[in-house]
């Protein structure tokens, strides 16, 4: 989502909340759903987290003055809300995560290099593994590797130094490789 599109959407939101909100939901629904799925590991939880994210965004937008709406960086803002929704649900235990067991690698679960488009079942399995990472590794891996944010953006989201984020991403990927048996084929 480029900065130009952001400016267009925030201008529309500031002028007409209902119309702008519809455009925003349609523009970001897949991004926020993908984030929620990787974080929570289950489609049903993911839909709830993603829906709650947009509902909270709507409540906030109704309160914000137009100037503030125009300055929003929508992608970062929505991800921050989604992260809070996710963390609240984990804290209230309305969302249960299954911690990863590193000693038990998935036998031969790695797709060969020839089958590169993962099936939806494989994607779901992967989301499940990611959601089982320890909290800081999970957030760092999802934002950096799933959502494609820069290290600087992830560091700002998580309010951590970039070095911490980098080492959490590194450790998270290592754990996933051990668990899932992915080969480190550098291309």
């Amino acid at each position, binding site marked *: 989502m480029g900065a130009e599109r952001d400016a267009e959407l925030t201008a529309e939101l500031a002028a007409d909340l*209902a119309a702008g*909100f*519809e455009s925003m*939901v*349609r523009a970001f*629904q*897949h*991004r*926020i*759903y*993908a*984030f929620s*799925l*990787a974080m929570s590991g289950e*489609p049903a939880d993911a*839909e709830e987290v*993603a*829906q709650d994210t*947009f*509902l909270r965004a*709507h409540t906030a937008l109704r309160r914000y003055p137009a100037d503030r709406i125009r300055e929003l960086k929508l992608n970062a803002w929505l991800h921050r809300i989604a992260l809070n929704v996710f963390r609240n649900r984990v804290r209230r235990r309305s969302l249960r995560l299954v911690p990863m067991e590193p000693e038990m690698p998935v036998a031969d679960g*790695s*797709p060969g*290099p020839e089958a*590169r*488009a*993962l099936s*939806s079942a*494989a*994607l779901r399995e*992967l*989301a499940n593994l*990611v959601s089982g990472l320890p909290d800081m590794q999970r957030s760092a*891996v999802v934002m950096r*590797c*799933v*959502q*494609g944010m820069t290290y600087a953006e992830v560091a700002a989201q998580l309010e951590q130094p970039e070095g911490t984020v980098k080492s959490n991403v590194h450790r998270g*990927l290592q754990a*996933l*490789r051990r668990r*899932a048996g*992915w*080969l*480190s*084929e*550098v*291309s």
Partner: protein
Amino acid sequence: MDLLEKDLRDLGRVRAPDGFADRVLVAVGIVPGGVDAYAALQTPVGVLEVAWNGDGVSAVRLAQARDDFERWFASRLSRRVVRVPQLPDRLAGQIEDAIAGRSPRLRLDLGRLSPFEQEVLGKTQEIPRGEVRPYAWVAREIGRPRAVRAVGTALGHNPIPVLIPCHRVVRSDGALGEYSMGGTDVKRDMLRHEGVDAAWLEQLAVAGTRYVGSRTTHVFCLPTCRHARRIQAANRVPLRDEREAVRAGFRPCARCRPALVS
């Protein structure tokens, strides 16, 4: 980038489920173009599924399987409908009031129906709670006295039963007649809930009594008209038809307009 990282990027490209955006929009009260929302509502007459949009309530049915409602809605009204967790509080309150007879001015969306259907249903909305009218009465009131059968068909296809009280339209001989929302028994229950004694109506029908006249006012009414119910037993005259009423010196009630008298 290794395979794992490539797969993680694929995970970032999954798409939200179908209808996700519509459900979000409806949940914050924005009805996207061409889409109605629906939710279940517990009422004194049972659990109803209620669909609505910016113009008002568009459909009501007794709660059944979720897919049934969506398919029925799409074929009846040629619009999509999205399930949401619950009705907005204000709308739920208005519907409860309407069922309790407190708020006749709930907004209804009849825009997808034919002009004839709109007239029939609009007239049916005027029938007061606790009273019934014959199909022929509706036909006559909308200026189509010969279209009794078409009136029956339009009421049978009423997309908003309960709120448009098609259960208050009965056969001209006093029998209750059909009810699209679950047959004659449900119709009898709905009327009983509103204080109409269906057994008494059926007794009148068997006895051949279509109207009730008052010896003191010389007015004759449909049996459930509020004015008819005030007539004391000693002054009550059962009447077989309008000719008998006129011969005996009765005028038709201006409130329930039981019949045209030449």
